[in-house]
């Protein structure tokens, strides 16, 4: 694609992409740390992860400001307009994902020192959710609508996994009333991870819009675009 006549504009757009990626990378590591803290029952790691959420929030504000500045100064059109509006929406989803990672950590801190045992495969679910987030951001930076569609399709698997875990936890809570507190906490975490995947899906849908100019939100996922 041709470069902008206005070099500074070109640089500003490149910087916006960079900021979104940095924020995405940070949020990914927040998810990883939160689930590691959960699996190892590590309250210190959970607390430091909660602490780092303010960095995620700072990116949220900075990217918003950058997008508003670009809109006001350059009156962007077409693909540039779609990039900037996508940037605005993606950061909202990333910020929520960051909050969900904090929620996971809060469950760890609540149960710290109580010897909680994670009996369902939350780390696998977390890996899936992180994978979806990573792929949605890869699709963003590579402007790859097909990869974004794959992320949308993957959401069904994580929904199914959440359903299976829910039933499993209900099963062992029924057998052992002493496990209700841990079990409820783990159902919450499973739900947080399922929500993270939903936000990754939102990002992927926005990427499809950014690349193709067509909204696929609130529709069944097309096989190709």
């Amino acid at each position, binding site marked *: *694609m*041709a*470069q*902008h*006549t*206005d070099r500074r*504009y070109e640089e500003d757009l490149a910087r916006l992409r960079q900021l979104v990626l940095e924020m995405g990378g940070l949020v990914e590591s927040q998810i990883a740390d939160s689930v590691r803290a959960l699996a190892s029952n590590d309250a210190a790691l959970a607390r430091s992860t909660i602490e780092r959420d303010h960095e995620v929030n700072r990116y949220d504000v900075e990217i918003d400001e950058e997008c508003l500045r670009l809109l006001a100064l*350059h*009156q*962007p*059109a*077409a*693909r*540039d*307009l*779609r990039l900037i509006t996508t940037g605005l929406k993606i950061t909202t989803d990333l910020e929520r994902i960051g909050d969900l990672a904090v929620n996971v950590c809060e469950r760890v801190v609540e149960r710290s020192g109580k010897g909680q045992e994670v009996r369902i495969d939350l780390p696998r679910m977390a890996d899936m959710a992180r994978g979806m987030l990573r792929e949605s951001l890869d699709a963003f930076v590579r402007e790859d609508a097909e990869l974004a569609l794959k992320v949308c399709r993957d959401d069904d698997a994580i929904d199914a996994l959440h359903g299976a875990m829910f039933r499993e936890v209900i099963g062992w809570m029924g057998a052992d009333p002493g496990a209700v507190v841990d079990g409820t906490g783990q159902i919450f975490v499973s739900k947080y991870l399922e929500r993270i995947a939903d936000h990754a899906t939102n990002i992927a849908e926005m990427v499809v819009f950014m690349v*193709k*100019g*067509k909204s696929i939100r609130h529709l069944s996922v097309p096989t190709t675009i």
Partner: protein
Amino acid sequence: MDAGAEATPVKVSARDLDVFYGATQALHGITLDARANRVTALIGPSGCGKSTFLRSINRMNDLIAGMRRQGTILLDGRDIHDPDVDVVDLRRRVGMVFQRSNPFPKSIYENVAYGPRIHGVSDRTTLDEIVRTTLEQAALWDEVKDRLGASALSLSGGQQQRLCIARALAVEPEVLLMDEPASALDPLATARIEELIHELKERYTILIVTHNMQQAARVSDTTAYFYMGRLVEMGPTAQIFTNPSKQETEDYITGRFG
């Protein structure tokens, strides 16, 4: 969905229009429909042919020595180059507003009454009525009603341009061609002209040439992108500015041109 999306009858229709200035071909096979009561914006870099196209619609280019044309332009389905078409009547039906306001060095009243007079209106009451209604349509009446006898040149630039629009409207045209009508005006005067364009499209078919892409986006229903004498892409304005189908259009409207 905005009103601009509904199809209205085709008012102006160019078919395979070629225009040459001497050996230079300025337009290559332009086929374009402008619909009634809609604003069609013509955009593109300097020298792309958009003004030539605009000036073809009321045969202003006929006045240029060495101009040659192939193809047709239809107004209400009728070829404007038919031998029995009266060019003066064509230019009454297809009015024009230029980049620089060019009022006659006469009174405000006389500027507006001039056209109707040469088309045979002489009754003073009728002229008074035409002057008032057209100045109202051009959103200028309230500002000048107490000084209709004052020189048109005493008006501000924005007022002069609205006077020129009133002058074009006074002969009851059907189509209004606007060649960068706001490029010499400040933002406030520009906003007034744009607001006026919105009001005028209820009665007229408007084609506007503009270098200001935000203006095209704001005022038009349909946008046509010209480049090097060719019509590259034409479509609903909202679509052209959010998701054009041609890379060339995309590059131009996003500032990646040149």
